[in-house]
């Protein structure tokens, strides 16, 4: 079975600081992989490289067989044209910590924008898809509301709908519950669980250890720009192979 995501030897530096020191990992269809690790370990940066929100210095990323971001011409690595990068970004859907809904548009228009402008659907087609997804996240009745009129949890659910509506091969979640009030976390996690149950392939950077334990098919533990340990969450959480992971689990909320 072809891999849906293949990262090989990913390197990335900010000036003198090397944040990714050769990350290699793969995801197959319907994998739900949670990336954990302390802040500064490079997990968010890795996620952002996958849809070229961050440039990277070395290594390759393939999504659904397509090489992301850079191409070799005469053996020299070139950044792809902006148009191709935009097209490749549509292979993935991304949900952010801060929701990043467009504040001047209704919930419905937030979702239809990409469908109409990037996917070139007609407005009625786009509205039909957007309404279906709003319904799925339980917010169809709020389709005319602006983000400022919605709670954080509702905004994040609209943001998830916006990303999934583009029909991506792979969903990327970047600490999507970290900015939410505790009582709003579950409604968002439930939406993600439902998507996982339907076979959506996803890569999540998360601090929700309980969620990682229950939902992930695999967990990746990152430490200082490298994958320190990866595997089945049950095995990893109950019997961490590395000292570093044991320490990390002791200090995080999972018990």
């Amino acid at each position, binding site marked *: 079975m072809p891999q849906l995501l293949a990262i090989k030897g990913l390197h990335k530096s900010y000036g003198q600081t090397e944040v990714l020191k050769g990350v290699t990992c793969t995801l197959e269809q319907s994998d739900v992989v949670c990336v954990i690790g302390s802040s500064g370990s490079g997990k968010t940066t890795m996620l952002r490289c996958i*849809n*070229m*929100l961050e440039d990277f210095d070395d290594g390759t990323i393939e999504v659904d067989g397509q090489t992301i971001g850079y191409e070799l011409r005469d053996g020299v690595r070139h950044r792809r044209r*902006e*148009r191709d990068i*935009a*097209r490749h*970004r*549509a292979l*993935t*859907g*991304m949900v*952010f910590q*801060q929701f*990043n*809904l*467009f*504040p*001047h548009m209704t919930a419905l228009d937030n979702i239809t*924008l*990409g469908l109409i*402008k*990037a*996917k070139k659907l007609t407005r009625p087609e786009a509205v039909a898809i957007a309404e279906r997804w709003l319904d799925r996240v339980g917010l169809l009745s709020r389709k005319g509301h*602006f983000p*400022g*009129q919605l709670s954080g949890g509702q905004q994040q659910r609209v*943001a998830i709908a*916006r*990303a999934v509506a*583009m029909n991506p091969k792979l969903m990327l979640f970047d600490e999507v519950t970290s900015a939410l009030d505790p009582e709003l976390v579950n409604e968002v996690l439930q939406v993600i669980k439902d998507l996982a149950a339907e076979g959506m392939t996803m890569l999540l950077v998360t601090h929700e250890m309980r969620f990682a334990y229950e939902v992930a098919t695999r967990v990746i533990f990152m430490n200082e720009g490298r994958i320190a340990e990866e595997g089945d969450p049950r095995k990893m959480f109950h019997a961490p192979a590395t000292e570093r992971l044991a320490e990390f689990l002791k200090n995080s909320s999972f018990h």
Partner: protein
Amino acid sequence: MTTSFAFLADMWTARFAILSGLGVTVLTSLLAIIAGSLVGVFVGLALTFGNRVTRIAARVYTDFVRGTPVLVLILASYYILGTVGLRLNAFQAGILALAVFCSSHIGEIVRGSLQAIPKGQAEAAKAIGLTFAQSFLYVLLPQAARQALPAWVNVAAEIVKASTLLSIIGVAELLLVTQQIIARNFMGLPFYFFAGFLYFLVNFGIERFGKYVERRLAISAR
């Protein structure tokens, strides 16, 4: 009694001159504001997203223009451009100078408004596969425009006031027409006062228009 009657009688005599002066003031200002705003958006774009070369070029342009008195810009555009082969009449030269002045200010305002938008907005637009032009047009510009509107109204009012300087190069706008009328009838006080009142009306209109647009564009419960 007799003076106020004389003023009204002279007003009546000069009605078409005043109206045409007002028309020229409104027309020059309007054209300068429209052209200046359009160019200003591109200047702001270059200042914010340009590569090194375009950014420095836009920076030099805005700093140079903003550091030059409008009157000097007007004189330069009328007298100096002619010597390098671009011969404009007073009306064209005046609009060019005002538009350039306007564009530099709008450029700075657009830059400030674009930079005030959280970075996540552009990232979210990229993440759903929009190209740069699309994300600018549908995501960044609408938000920047709301932010920029009050400052834009200020610049527009400044342009209307600066248009009085076009009288120096002989554009028959409201101030020059008023001066010509006063040269005939020596009624300086009432006619200057009346001209001032008309300028106030124009700028008051711009301000109301700005408030109206602001209300229309307001993002509910933001």
